[in-house]
């Protein structure tokens, strides 16, 4: 089949270029040799990178620093804003065997799919020197069944609860972060109970206790070693008690009118932060930068961070080196450097992306980090402690990201469209079957 396509394609290309030779049509000259754009020339090594979102390497000037320290290296990084778009392009490039960069970023939700279906296209990084400093569960996420490591970890997203002190106070809830953490210690259902207390006593009924029930759902799921899939790669979400409990509690929050009916990172959520329409949100480390930016200077000092009932991880990424790269060795060195403890700590200081390196998590500048915006909360301590609570083995599945989105939509059905939890579950179940089956 593939051969047939190749043949047809060359014929079409031949036809098009024949016509263009006549000067009638400008043919598409994008003939690529399937290279990565990287290579060695005149003693200079060019390394290309494909990144997404704010991974921090380009933004904090780390790439420039590396080039300064290694004058013979030129790094060209392409950063796509949206991970979904990035991943679609990456998949097309992997399938076509062209357009890949030497180094590609991998989001955690895609890690399983890539290590299952594309591991031959990635270099095994298991033996790279000086890379034994990662959290064990982080490394296990990109280790294939035959012990191949397809990427090195960048950041992680352990979760806490961000809350508004002023709004908690007017509803008669404690405001001190330790007391707040005690409110829901050990059990997410206590967080919902606190919400009910908040709703009863709050003087402003325009303010909801939390932004969305899907944040709560995600936090409950992500703290477990088995989530939507089991180790054999079978879908177990329908029977997994973890998912059932999370759904039950999240839909309870949704039906008890505790949420602002917003969707995180969707329209309405940012103005909600700026105009204080909710008093708390479950927040991974990397969300802090977003909150402080969107809630703005006028809310500075009103926010605080408290420990979550249970440790959970949302998000994080990896850097992988492509087998196709002509500069594999140099690319591996760069990846190892970028993910080294010092650089991870540096990005944490600059952006707040929490290191996935155990060593970096123990460095004083990480442990002692405090956030001015969040009332001086010791975010280094809170998040590093949460990172230690996450189970060492996490079973990821191929369609984790998609399933998460479908459940979020299912909860929206309850929250904003008045569907019963049962009905919403059935709809979500059907959708997952379509999407992952």
């Amino acid at each position, binding site marked *: 089949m593939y051969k047939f396509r190749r043949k*047809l394609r060359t014929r079409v290309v031949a036809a*098009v270029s024949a016509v263009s030779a006549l000067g009638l*049509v400008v043919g598409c000259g994008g003939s690529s040799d399937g290279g990565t754009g990287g290579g060695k020339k005149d003693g200079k090594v060019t390394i290309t990178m494909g990144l997404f979102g704010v991974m921090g390497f380009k933004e904090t000037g780390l790439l420039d620093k590396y080039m300064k320290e290694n004058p013979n290296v030129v790094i060209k990084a392409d950063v796509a804003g949206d991970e979904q778009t990035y991943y679609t392009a990456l998949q097309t490039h992997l*399938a076509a065997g062209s357009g890949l960069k030497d180094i590609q970023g991998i989001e955690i939700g895609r890690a399983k799919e890539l290590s299952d*279906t594309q591991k031959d296209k990635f270099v095994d990084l298991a033996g790279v020197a000086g890379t034994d400093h990662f959290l064990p569960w982080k490394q296990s996420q990109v280790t294939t069944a035959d012990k191949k490591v397809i990427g090195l970890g960048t950041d992680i997203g352990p979760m806490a609860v961000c809350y508004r002190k002023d709004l908690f106070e007017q509803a008669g809830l404690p405001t001190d972060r330790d007391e707040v953490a005690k409110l829901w210690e050990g059990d997410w259902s206590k967080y919902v109970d606190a919400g009910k207390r908040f709703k009863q006593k709050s003087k402003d009924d325009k303010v909801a206790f939390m932004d969305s029930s899907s944040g709560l759902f995600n936090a409950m799921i992500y703290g477990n070693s088995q989530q939507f899939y089991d180790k054999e790669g079978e879908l177990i979400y329908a029977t997994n008690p973890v998912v059932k409990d999370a759904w039950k509690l999240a839909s309870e929050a949704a039906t008890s009118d505790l949420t602002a009916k917003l969707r995180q*990172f*969707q329209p309405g959520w940012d103005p909600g932060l700026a105009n204080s329409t909710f008093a708390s949100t479950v927040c991974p480390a990397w969300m802090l930068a977003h909150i402080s930016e969107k809630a703005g200077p006028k809310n500075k000092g009103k926010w605080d961070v408290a420990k979550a009932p249970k440790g959970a991880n949302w998000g994080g990424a990896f850097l992988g080196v492509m087998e196709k790269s002509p500069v594999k060795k140099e690319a591996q060195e760069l990846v190892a450097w970028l993910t080294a403890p010092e650089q991870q700590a540096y990005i944490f200081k600059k952006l707040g992306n929490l290191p996935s390196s155990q060593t970096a998590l123990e460095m004083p500048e990480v442990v002692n980090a405090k956030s001015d915006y969040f009332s001086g909360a010791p975010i280094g301590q809170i998040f590093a402690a949460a990172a230690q609570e996450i189970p060492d083995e996490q079973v990821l599945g191929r369609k984790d990201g998609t399933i998460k989105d479908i459940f979020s939509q299912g909860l929206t*059905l309850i929250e904003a*469209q008045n*569907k019963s939890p049962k009905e919403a579950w059935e709809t979500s179940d059907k959708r997952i079957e379509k999407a992952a089956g």
Partner: protein
Amino acid sequence: MAISTSTPQDGAPGTAPPAGTGTGGDGQRRRTLLHRLDVRGAPYAFVAPFFVVFAAFSFYPLIYTSWISLHRVELSTLNLMEWVGFDNYTALWDDERFWNALLNTFTIGVLSTVPQLLMALGLAHMLNYRLRGSTFFRVAALTPYATSVGAAALVFTMLFERDFGMINWMLSLFGVDNIDWENNKWAAQTAISSIVIWRWTGYNALLYLAAMQAIPRDRYEAAAIDGASRWQQFLKVTVPGIRSTIVFTIVLSTIGATQLFGEPLIFGQGPNGITGGADNQYQTLGLLLYEEGWKNYQMGRAATVAWAMFLLLIVVFIVQRVVKRVLARKA
């Protein structure tokens, strides 16, 4: 050729003339052949570039898409194709999302096309009067058309925002509670239609205006002498005068409506845009295709939706032809 021209000198005189006529006839035949080839063939050569490009970028993808639609293929592993025959098609037929998307495409199409064309007609009629600064108004009417779908849809999304959107704020002045535009089916479809209407009304109005200006003035004068009011003039002179343009805009808007994609995608933003709302309340066929291909990464199923859309257009075309023929026979 060279041999035959050299023969007359040493050849018998009797054989020369036929040889001569032979060469003359040969050349002539050749010339007529070339001439006929020129006349008959040249047009094909001239249109060839279009068809070569068409073959490469339209026909080949079309055929290849139909091939894909008979397989189970994922985007990441395009070289692994599993033959499933017509399973994708039967699954699509049984899939309620398909019928939902089809219905949404139709309702949003009606919601956007009908008011759009009526408003365009009225706008064109007004622009047709002698106005001060008529060029300004005409250019102004066309500006929305020159805006990108993305920009327009983004701005409208902000206007229709639930908690802090301008439209809900204005409605609140009249005591209307906040409407959750995105989560309410008909509100969402109306909002999306309004983006389409805003973008295309001016464009259609200018088409109508051009057609109206081609209507001879004396028809209006004759109508006025017969005592027709402005409204009657509009109905009896203007509308029949631009009938063919109206048909053209209807065809154009219908095609546009079946392809509706960008506006709902941006209106929903993120995962909700792809599925056309949490309850698929505004998912069009274009979005369903996108969801199958670029969220579920199932290229076989996405190709099937594409073909279903194509077949649907053919069905609409045939129905239109049949209706036209039946009407013509009756007349």
